[in-house]
């Protein structure tokens, strides 16, 4: 498990950004990472910050495989082409995930056994970052009590604490989420993840040492950039980054529906114990 790691620099930037919001000259040093593309200023929420509320989803095939992949047979040949995996381009900056040797072997094993061992197949909570690029929409609720992410998949959700940072308690699937604004960008520091969730259907994974820093930045009226920096010294040789686009659902009747998937996983999990 990884407890809170809020760098002094991060706090300083947060304080300076907050000052900027209240109309004072932002004397912040150049941000370490690219902020919003010059020129786009998102609509404002009730508190003057960028408004990220709404229903979002990705069109990437990142949930199949974060890295570059050709189309191929899925884990269930019985489903024919319906179960096949579409091709996709890597959403990992630099192309590939820097696994340590033992972890690379474990990933291969995960791939081989993915039909029955992917936590998504079991309807387990998706963890962070995977929740954000699964093929289900999610809604961001920007409230005075914090920023809530509600995911359609498995009714999972997480409340991002925007107040004084909290230290992670027990490890959880969705982590302890501490957020702050860096100008137009919502930055979320995620600790206390249990490391049981996979990162995609290809068996990419982490340990409970995983620490994720996410950056959500609106780039125009209907698109948002999502970046996640992932570090886990037990699994990866260095930190690496996911970078993908989230699309806003613009239909007038767009809303989250329910995908309580436990019952769809019961045959897989308990079928062997049923009365024959």
């Amino acid at each position, binding site marked *: 498990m990884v407890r809170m790691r809020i760098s002094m620099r991060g706090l300083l930037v947060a304080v300076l950004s907050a000052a900027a919001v209240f109309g004072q000259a932002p004397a912040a040093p150049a941000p370490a990472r690219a902020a919003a593309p010059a020129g786009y200023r998102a609509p404002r929420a009730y508190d003057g910050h960028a408004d990220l509320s709404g229903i979002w989803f990705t069109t990437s095939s990142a949930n199949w495989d974060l890295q570059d992949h050709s189309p191929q047979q899925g884990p269930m040949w019985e489903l024919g082409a319906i179960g096949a995996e579409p091709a996709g381009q890597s959403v990992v900056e630099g192309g590939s995930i820097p696994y340590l040797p033992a972890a690379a072997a474990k990933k291969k094993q995960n791939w081989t056994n993915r039909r029955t061992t992917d936590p998504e197949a079991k309807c387990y909570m998706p963890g962070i970052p995977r929740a954000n690029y699964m093929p289900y929409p999610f809604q961001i609720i920007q409230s005075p009590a914090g920023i809530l992410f*509600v995911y359609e998949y498995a009714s999972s959700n997480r409340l991002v604490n925007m107040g004084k940072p909290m230290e992670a308690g027990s490890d959880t699937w969705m982590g302890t989420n501490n957020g702050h604004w860096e100008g137009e960008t919502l930055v979320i520091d995620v600790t206390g993840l249990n490391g049981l969730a996979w990162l995609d259907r290809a068996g990419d994974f982490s340990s409970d040492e995983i620490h994720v820093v996410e950056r959500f930045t609106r780039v125009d009226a209907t698109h948002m950039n999502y970046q996640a920096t992932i570090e886990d010294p037990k699994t990866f040789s260095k930190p690496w980054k996911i970078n993908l686009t989230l699309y806003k659902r613009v239909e007038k009747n767009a809303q989250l529906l329910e995908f309580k998937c436990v019952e769809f996983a019961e045959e897989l999990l308990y079928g062997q114990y*049923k009365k024959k």
Partner: protein
Amino acid sequence: MKRGAFIFVLGLAAVTAWGQYVAPKTPWGDPDLQGMWPGNMGVPMQRPAAQGTRTELTDAEYAQRVQTAKQQAAADAVDVGAPAAKPGIGPPSYWTERGTPTRRTSLIVDPPDGRLPPLTKVEETLRKEARGGKGFPGEWRGEAAAPEDLNIYYRCITRGLLGSVIPVVYNNGNQILQEPGYVVFRNEMIHESRVIPLDGRPHVSESIRMYLGDSRGHWEGNTLVVETTNFTDQDAIGSNGAGYPGDPGHHSRDLKVIERFTRTGPTSLNYEATVVDPKTWTKPWTILIELKKDDHFQLLEYACHEGNYAIGDILSGARAEEAASKKN
């Protein structure tokens, strides 16, 4: 924040008193219901028939309830390691949130006798004949041929819309969040976050069915009114998503639940829910849960399904028992 107008007049109908308190407003002008509103266990769903239409305990009955709570607390403190402890599927007793005793005689406030109205004839027959005479799996009766023999609470699917808020022995946290155009009602019980639009949009198509239904909210003065339809008939309505004691809680797809959230003071909120399902009950019924604000309460992630050993163990145990009885 206008608190001065809050007047609690004993003996008047509660609704009159509630009307006096004006909730603070959110920055965008809606009544502000936000905060942590954990439930307090200890009021039975239905009132014992002997108490008639009496909504509060007598002094003697209340003293008895307080005494029972004290004994329970003492028993809880004696850990699960007690020599007489039997294996079971419940949580260890020191986890339990038994709440503070109150004088209320039942959560049901209407009908006036505090009891569920009679079932319709159609529903009585349905319940008798369900699943070839086995009945609905509201309460587990030892059948364990397949997961479907266990109710949705055992299976960690959901406790249902009412069951997620009715206080039980653990995970009683509720939280309300708001943003312009939406209210979210979060329940710790199996990590629910029900997003309720306030923009007056119509319900989704009748073809779409959900365990927690499809909710639409609007304001009536200081009260948030939420109407929910589009339920499945696979869940159960009652204290834990599995019905209420002695009853499977089965209802029809015509179920409609009308919830009313009203702040009655700086740290109190009344949650009322009226259950309307003419195919199942001969008349509507209403529960009232008085919630107290506690911003120190933390909603923790309840990974119920992820940690569900019960289903696999119950089913495999039943198979082992059958195999053993064949040998004998």
